[in-house]
């Protein structure tokens, strides 16, 4: 009889239990944050109201009425969407060139791109702040978009490069023989074939842009401030207003959690792509 690996029932159950525990562990902070967002600031710090309390929408109403939530949200959408579009606009041709016309330096270029992520952001904080202020771009959408695009470009190019590498080179060459120019190759062959990969790259880039805090907090004040800045702004010096802070945080991560939920399949495929084969 052939030897076939069998998974026992007990093994399956213990694995499922472990998965649930890990899942709940990761989910708990979000649950806690949402729960707290429905408490008053006073209730939020009292242990007796840990799970049982009178829910209130006060924090959310306060946020939209007094803190101009929608302006921050709009800025987050604008900067994340455009930063993602520009990152793809630069990343696709770049990854195309390296995947299908590699030179001896391609590997080094890829490593160099990745190495830029190793630079501590704090190391360039002062130059960046002075530079943006001196050219009058401090606290502008344009500046935030450029910065978000640049910090995500390495990961975008790496991901796209990995996807494009999976496309047989002959198909691109067949396109060349069939009379298309470079732009035609990208439009007619590459993008349709790598659509799934491009979509998950875009999604991931969008999430990174949305969640970015270091630069968006430091290079904006009001006009281009994103939701990260709004959260940061609720960190009151005289003590934390937990209820208010939780409401702001929940409203900031809400859209991205919902988006991620709907695109789960794409995301998982994107993150594990190229792991096998």
């Amino acid at each position, binding site marked *: 009889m052939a030897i076939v690996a069998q998974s026992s029932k007990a093994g399956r159950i213990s694995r499922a239990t472990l998965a649930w525990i890990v899942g709940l562990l990761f989910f708990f902070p979000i649950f806690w944050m949402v729960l707290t967002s429905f408490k008053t600031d006073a209730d939020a710090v009292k242990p007796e109201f840990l799970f049982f309390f009178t829910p209130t929408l006060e924090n959310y109403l306060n946020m939209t009425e007094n803190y101009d939530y929608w302006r921050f949200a709009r800025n987050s959408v604008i900067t994340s969407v455009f930063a993602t579009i520009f990152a793809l606009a630069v990343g696709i041709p770049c990854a195309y060139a390296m995947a299908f016309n590699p030179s001896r330096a391609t590997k080094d270029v890829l490593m160099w791109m990745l190495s830029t992520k190793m630079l501590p952001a704090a190391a360039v904080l002062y130059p960046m702040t002075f530079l943006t202020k001196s050219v009058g771009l401090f606290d502008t959408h344009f500046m935030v978009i450029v910065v978000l695009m640049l910090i995500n470009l390495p990961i975008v190019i790496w991901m796209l490069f990995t996807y494009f590498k999976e496309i047989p080179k*002959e*198909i691109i*060459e*067949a396109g060349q*023989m*069939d*009379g298309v120019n470079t732009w*035609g190759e990208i439009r007619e062959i590459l993008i*349709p*074939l790598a659509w799934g990969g491009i979509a998950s790259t875009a999604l991931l880039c969008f999430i990174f842009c949305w969640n970015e805090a270091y630069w968006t907090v430091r290079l904006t004040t009001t006009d281009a401030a994103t939701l990260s800045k709004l959260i940061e702004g609720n960190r009151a010096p005289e003590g934390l207003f937990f209820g208010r802070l939780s409401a702001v945080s929940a409203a900031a991560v809400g859209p991205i959690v919902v988006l991620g939920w709907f695109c789960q399949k794409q995301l998982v495929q994107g993150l594990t792509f190229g792991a096998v084969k």
Partner: protein
Amino acid sequence: MGRIVLEKVTKSFGDTQVIPPLDLTIEDGEFAVFVGPSGCGKSTLLRLIAGLEHTTSGKVLIDGEDMTEISPSKRGLSMVFQTYALYPHMTVRKNIAFPMRMAGLSEEEQNKKIEAAAESLNLTDYLDRKPGQLSGGQRQRVAIGRAIVRDPSAFLFDEPLSNLDAALRVGMRLEITEMHERMKTTMIYVTHDQVEAMTMANKIVVLQAGVIEQVGTPLELYHKPCNLFVAGFIGSPKMNFIMGTEAAHMGAATIGIRPEHIDVVEEAGVWQGRVGVAEHLGSDTFFHIHDTGLTETLTVRAPGDVQLKHGDIISLNPRTELIHKFDDKGLRIA
């Protein structure tokens, strides 16, 4: 028109020169086959003609025009790849239409040509399918269809039948040969299979390590191989090579005789040996003979009705007028 001339073409990858200076002319309407063992540079040579690789030096002329620096899309050539290289996201119809759409042909014209190509390649029923739903043979037909509709000045085939099973390969081989008879367009065909080369070509180019060993018609190469490499590469089963005193008797360093030019005889023959393996094909039998004192194994092609088995003593008469002689450098002695 499709006259292709290579002038002192070389190709290096980094410091490795894979094609030393090479001259070659393929006349309009010829069916030229590049043949050689794997890694001999035949595919690279084809890709240089296609423009998919840049020449390191030298010129590629198509119909007298210097195309060395021209992109593949503007050379007016069509190519059929070993892996078919169809566009997986397009239907068969769209695949075939693609080069015409890129060339800006009208929809009407496109459809006319698609119908004609599909008809001649038996693809009419499959036009609305995607490549993933087709068999290997059908995919290769689509690739050929896509090549035909461009009306190229020459077709380039890069081992197009290697991924097909044996029976299909013979069928497609005939189809491509017939297509050439009908269209009279220049075709350049790369293969490592000398049977394909012999059966399809008007002109065979035998390559080894990027160097052209010999150019000629199939029968020229069969009857007058210019060196040991060509002699051993062309013909199946392989030519027998005999060195030593037997060769010296004939004034050569090495003599070669094809398995079909050795006769099995009843009475005592010129050579004798013991039968090792006998391969019965029905029409023919290939005997691998040991202990001849000539070479380790001598291959003989005998009619199918010769009944000898492992261990039997066999008598042989070579047809001396068909023996090939080579000097100590491996070159043919006229």
